[in-house]
Each structure stands twice: as structure tokens, then as C-alpha cells.
């Protein structure tokens, strides 16, 4: 097994864990964490595949992931501001549609 194949499998496992957390957790902060784990799994897949060529490392996925890391922190920061405002207004740390 090559390194690319090995880390692709790990990316799959991480994606599964991220989705599981996203579904089962209701606390907003935990959901944001789960989405970040999911995002990191996709980054890992891209970077692992950049390594599949025997003679060179593909710089294009690296550039995409670098862009992705900055986008991820922007989105996370905005999500956190939203969650804080929501908590300040309602006193809830989960969404109302998650109520039984």
C-alpha cells in the first residue's frame, strides 16, 4: 500500500467520525468542531492524492488546501459569532428544531 492510499483511508475514517459527530451532537460549539473535523478530512484526501505520482508532488492541491484552511477559519469565526449572538438572545446552545 502506498502512502497516498493509506492516508486516503484515514481521510475516509475522519470524515465518518466528523459526520457522526455532526448528527449526534446538538451543542452548537460541538457541531462547529465536527464540521471542522469533516473539513480536515477532505483536506487530507486532497493532500494524500497530491502524493500519488511517483516522480513529483502536485502543488495544485496544496494551493487549494492552503486556500481552504483560510476559508475554514473564516467560516468558523463567523459561525462562532452567530452561535454567541444566538445564545445571548435565547439562552439556548442548541437549535430549536432539535427539540423533541
Amino acid at each position: 500500500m502506498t502512502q497516498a492510499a493509506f492516508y486516503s483511508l484515514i481521510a475516509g475514517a475522519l470524515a465518518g467520525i466528523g459526520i457522526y459527530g455532526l448528527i449526534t451532537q446538538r451543542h452548537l460549539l460541538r457541531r462547529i468542531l465536527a464540521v471542522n473535523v469533516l473539513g480536515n478530512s477532505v483536506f487530507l484526501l486532497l493532500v494524500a492524492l497530491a502524493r500519488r505520482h511517483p516522480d513529483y508532488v502536485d502543488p495544485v492541491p496544496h494551493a487549494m488546501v492552503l486556500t481552504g484552511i483560510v476559508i475554514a477559519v473564516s467560516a468558523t469565526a463567523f459561525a462562532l459569532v452567530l452561535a454567541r449572538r444566538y445564545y445571548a438572545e435565547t439562552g439556548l446552545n442548541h437549535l430549536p428544531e432539535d427539540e423533541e
Partner: protein
Amino acid sequence: MIDWTFDLLLAGGLLGLAWQIVASRILFRSVVLFIVFGLLMAVTWARLAAPDLALAEAAIGAGITGALLLSAYRALLPDRDDGGEGGSPPPAVPPWAAVGVAVLVGVLIAGIGWAVVGLEPPEQTAGRLALAKLEASGVENPVTAVLLNFRSIDTLSEVVVLFVAFLAARVVAQDLVHAGPGDWLRASRREPLLVQPLIAFIAPMTVLAAGYLLWAGASQPGGAFQAGAVLAALGVLLRLTGRLRPTEETSLPERLVLVGGLVLFSAIGLASAGVASAVLEYPPGWAYELILLIETALTLAIALPLVLLFSGSGGLRGEVR
């Protein structure tokens, strides 16, 4: 051959941490482990021959995101004591269904990777083309060449996203007392003795490190993203120790920095359409200088919104102790 011991340890660490992040009963533990997860991701990037990503992940993924998460964790702590996390209801989806969906998604992602690895690699890929044309790009680091030259439209859009995230956060932000890491504490004479000497040492060193990362980005791992993240970390430090005071108003210099990267990048891109053959294509012979100019503006345009997002304010003012 590859030494599999290290890879296995790394993968085991990533999976174990990810599981603890989503399943740990204590929220604070999840947040802290997410920061550790970011650092382990940085090691993974280094292992996968992506040092640019390792630098960015350590500074942004683990550093800035960690600071944002910890400050939000503090703000979301329930005032009343009803045990744990403020009484989130139990999940509505039965656990077996969640496990089923998770396994499906995991198999899908891993399957995509497995299938692509199994394919015969194509002769002509964008990456090979980028490496072959590296000399024409004006810089020697292939990742910087892709980011600032071959695919500069992506980088331009990314700065737009960061700017929009900042604007959107300002729209929904709370008042200054509740936003960001909380009430601003004036740096007083009562602060621990070592804070002032430490900052006097760290601040110039951080600026130096950011400048080096920016400069080195042309030929080695580094560049505007990493330099911007390091500068943002300095801003977080100064905000937390009371050296920077949050304000609602954004001053004119701050506005210029916030839009500077965007405006300069777009202006050069449009102007190049006249001189070179296409929009965002640099005129021949000027690529290196223009890339360095754009990267400098981008460094500031990445650092400032990140600090302001952390601070939860529209602007920052220096405060003399």
C-alpha cells in the same frame, strides 16, 4: 521505503483525537483536543511533503481557530448551574442510524481516494504543467506560483471570502463587553511582572518572523497566508494583554488595510489585462515584483480581519500603559 511506524502512530493519533473531539462528554476537553488535532494535522502535512500547509495549519488551524474556539467556549458557558453543557437535549437520531450514515460517508470518501490512487496517473496534469512552467511564474516555490500566478483568481476570491466573513460577523456581533474574549482589561501595573518583558521580546520577533515568512515564500515554504497568520497571532496576544483596545469604529488606516489587498490585487489584475494578454496575468519580467507587492498587501489584509474577528470589534486602538 516508507517507515510505516510513524505513519501508523500519526494516523492512530488523528483518529483517536477526532473521536474524542466529537464524543467526549466534557466540552472543554473537546475544544482543547481540537487544538491538539490541528497540531497533529500540521505534522501530517509535513509528513505528506506539504511544508507550506504545515506552517499554515500550525498558525491558523491550531493557533487562531483555537483562540476563537476557547473564547466562544467561555461565552457559551451557561450562567445557571444545570449540569454539564446547559441541558442540550439527547440526539433525535438513533445511534445506529448515525453510525450508518457515518460509515457510508467514510466509505465514500475513502473509496474516492482508493479509486483515484488505483487509476493510471494521467501524463499531463495541472501540477506537472505548473512545475514545468515554474520559471515563467517569477517565483521558485511551486505552491506560491500556483497561488499568486497560475491560479491567482482563487486567491483573490479567498480574500473576498475572508472580508465578507468579517463584514458578516460585524453585522451580527454583540456589543463590545460581550464580544470577543470579553471585557477589555487595561494593562495595569498589577499584571504579572513578566508580561511586559515577554511582550517586548515576542512582538518584534513575531514581526520579524512574519516578514521572513513573507520574503521566503518566493523560494521556500512560506508566503502571505503564513505571514498573515503569524501577525494575527501577535494581534491576539496584544489584545489579550490589554495593549490593544477594541472599539466599534474602524479607523481609516484599518479600512485601507482591510480592502488594500483586494483593491491592489484587482487593480493589478485588471491593469495587466492591457499590458499582458489576460486579466490577472502579469506583464513579462514584472511577475516577481508584482507578486511580492500583492503578497505584502495580502499579509496585512489576512492578519487584520482575523484579529478583528477574534477581538469581536470593528477596530483596535493602541493603548499606552
